[in-house]
């Protein structure tokens, strides 16, 4: 929960594991197992850990079940844990040599897990006889899983930020199509905001996830966060300050967005009181449950001089130290998930494979394909080993600025100093 609202690196909408869902996750593959043993050959058991505790988990289970049925010599056991505690468990398991054979990492976490030597590089497997075409991944996504010249996982999806909008409110305001650039966006928000006597009852925009939203605008302004060698934090870059100022102005000057609350601001969009929000593709399943809400999806408008949008990727990773049949089985499973990631997309995701996105089936998913148009310019969070400390500082700075308790310059200056203190501390340990 907390991580959900404060770390854009982990999705929201997946609040807790229901016990039944969890048990089903464990039980389903196990039920299939006896049938598979008939082949007589020795069966390889693979543990597959992930944080898909929402509707996405059901989708994933279905795919795994199919894999188990088609591969009698492999038995995949799925364990799903809420993202908020997932990394703790995975890390402790890995530390004491009990890591699962296959597990999901967010791309933003690849660096720290690779540095801790938890991951098996996939380069040989990708280029091997049963490999995958690495050119089928977008270059900017593929490079996110690379550490020191090696790739440490197979990206499964790109969960990208996009603009959800309320069609009904757009119609009422006489707006034909979702705005795509700054002036149109501001104009639309002004028309979509209503402030009658008793106070505002309709907002043009709402900040649901502060950091993914503001990070997107900062990247559009071309702001930098670290020096090339990551030796110093430069988050108080003038372009970041200007981007943050734009966001502050939406609240304070334009008054088209309410002051930031918490994640629950999203409820305002669900209730039809807010016309637009920048949220991840993973919120689609949540929206589709709202039968009365007439919503659409579009790329995030280009507010700054460059196109950019926050994203992250679920990445399939292999435990370090595997070999032989176990490694082959694990790779076969990873490859299967990647090849079948259109099924994954149907549950509210965007597959990372270009060839899959060109299929008619993907084009028939309107929101996914609208959001997917942004993939060429997605922007991942900076890759640092102290990723959570960095994200906390970024979050706090954004929060202070949007709430008006510090100017964008002051807030980012403080955050920069704090992150530089972390860098100094980290460099001492090496």
């Amino acid at each position, binding site marked *: *929960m*907390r*991580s959900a*609202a*404060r770390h854009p690196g982990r999705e929201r909408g997946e*609040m*807790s594991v229901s016990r039944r869902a969890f048990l089903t996750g464990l039980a389903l593959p196990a039920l299939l197992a006896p049938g598979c043993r008939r082949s007589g050959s020795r069966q390889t058991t693979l543990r597959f850990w992930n944080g898909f505790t929402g509707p996405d988990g059901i989708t994933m289970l279905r795919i795994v079940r199919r894999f188990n049925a088609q591969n009698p010599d492999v038995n995949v056991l799925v364990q799903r844990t809420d993202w908020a505690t997932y*990394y*703790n468990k995975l*890390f402790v398991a890995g*530390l004491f040599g009990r890591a699962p054979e296959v597990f999901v990492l967010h791309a933003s976490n690849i660096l*720290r897990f690779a*540095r*801790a*030597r938890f991951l098996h590089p996939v380069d040989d497997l990708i280029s091997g006889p049963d490999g995958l075409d690495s050119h089928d991944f977008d270059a900017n996504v593929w490079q996110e899983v690379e550490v020191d010249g090696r790739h440490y996982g197979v990206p499964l999806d790109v969960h990208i930020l996009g603009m959800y909008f309320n069609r009904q409110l757009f119609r009422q305001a006489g707006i034909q199509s979702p705005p795509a650039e700054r002036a149109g966006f501001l104009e639309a928000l002004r028309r979509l905001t209503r402030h009658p006597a008793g*106070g505002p009852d309709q907002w043009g925009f709402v900040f649901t996830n502060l950091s993914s939203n503001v990070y997107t605008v900062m990247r559009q302004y071309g702001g930098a966060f670290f020096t090339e060698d990551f030796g110093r934090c430069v988050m108080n870059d003038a372009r970041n300050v200007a981007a943050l100022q734009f966001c502050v102005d939406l609240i304070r000057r334009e008054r088209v967005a*309410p*002051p*930031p*609350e*918490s994640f*629950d*601001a999203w*409820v*305002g969009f669900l*209730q039809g*009181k807010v016309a637009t929000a920048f949220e991840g593709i993973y919120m689609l399943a949540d929206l589709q449950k709202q039968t009365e809400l007439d919503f659409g999806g579009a790329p995030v408008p280009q507010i700054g001089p460059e196109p950019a949008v926050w994203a992250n990727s679920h990445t399939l990773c292999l435990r370090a130290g595997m070999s032989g049949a176990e490694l082959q089985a694990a790779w076969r499973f990873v490859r299967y998930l990647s090849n079948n990631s259109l099924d994954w997309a149907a549950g509210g995701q965007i597959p990372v494979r270009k060839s899959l996105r060109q299929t008619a089936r993907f084009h028939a998913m309107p929101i996914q394909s609208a959001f997917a148009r942004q993939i060429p310019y997605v922007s991942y969070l900076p890759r640092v*080993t*102290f990723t*959570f*400390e960095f994200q*906390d500082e970024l979050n*706090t700075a954004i*929060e*202070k600025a949007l*709430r008006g*308790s510090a100017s964008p310059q002051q807030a980012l200056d403080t955050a920069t100093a704090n992150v530089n203190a972390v860098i100094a501390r980290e460099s001492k*340990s*090496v």
Partner: protein
Amino acid sequence: MGVATESAAEPGGTRSLAPARGRALSGYLYLLPYLILFGVFLVLPLLYGLGLSLFRWDMLSTVPARFIGTGNYSEALGSAYFWKALGATFRFVVMAVPLTILLGLLIAVGIEAVPVRRQALYRAAYFLPTLITVTVAGLLWRWFFNSEFGLFNALLAPLGIKVPWLTDTAWAMRSVVIMTLWWTVGGPVVIFLAGLQQIPSHYHEAAALDGANGWQRFRHITLPLLRPVMVFVVIMNVIGAFQVFGQTFMITQGGPELSTRVLVQYIYETAFNNYRMGYAAAMSWLLFALIAGFSLAQVRLLRER
């Protein structure tokens, strides 16, 4: 067994040494299962943590743990985040403990005044929220508190009041305390009620005959006789309040602007997001020392003179 030995020894009036020793031994034997669990799951990890707090151990780094003496402690004492978190914890303790005790006592006195047949119903009603997990209770109250779309502000809207329950740095902790009162007051109510029922009614009857009014009886009979119960409730509440985590984590996630990030949450983040185990252990021990100090002071202050 122990009881049997005792009753057998007493009529004679002469307690020989052997049965006493047997009694002590069997007592310890009874304690043994608990002592083993207590030792393995509480004392050992505690000591392990104490050792850990003297090391720099970043689980993510491939650099092995390094002994740095009191380095982690001095880092904590020099960290603005540590003091901010401690401040948030203190604000919670100072607000939540007195309110819980007062409200708990008030409700218990109220319940005691109703006919015995109906007491169980009220007791259960007040105790019920305690049984809900913090996850559910927190989620629920977060929705109640939402200033734009929440229940409370919807109820207050006709009066023209809009409270920034969770959006204001001053209000957020108050809101957490309000939720905590609802969630935890049942415990003290049940204990106070048990304490009240132990007070023999003839004390009150005698005082009433002497012309003491209700308040005087409460002040001079009930309160003094409730003292042992009070000591217990206060100490347990203070210990619990210092370890507050679930409510703030669920309702505010430490925000806005870290105003409700309490020490336990900061420790949790240090250990399990940033994997700085030594530093987290040191802060845990600082919190432990603080709680132990407060508890001892309370025992001294509240002990019967």
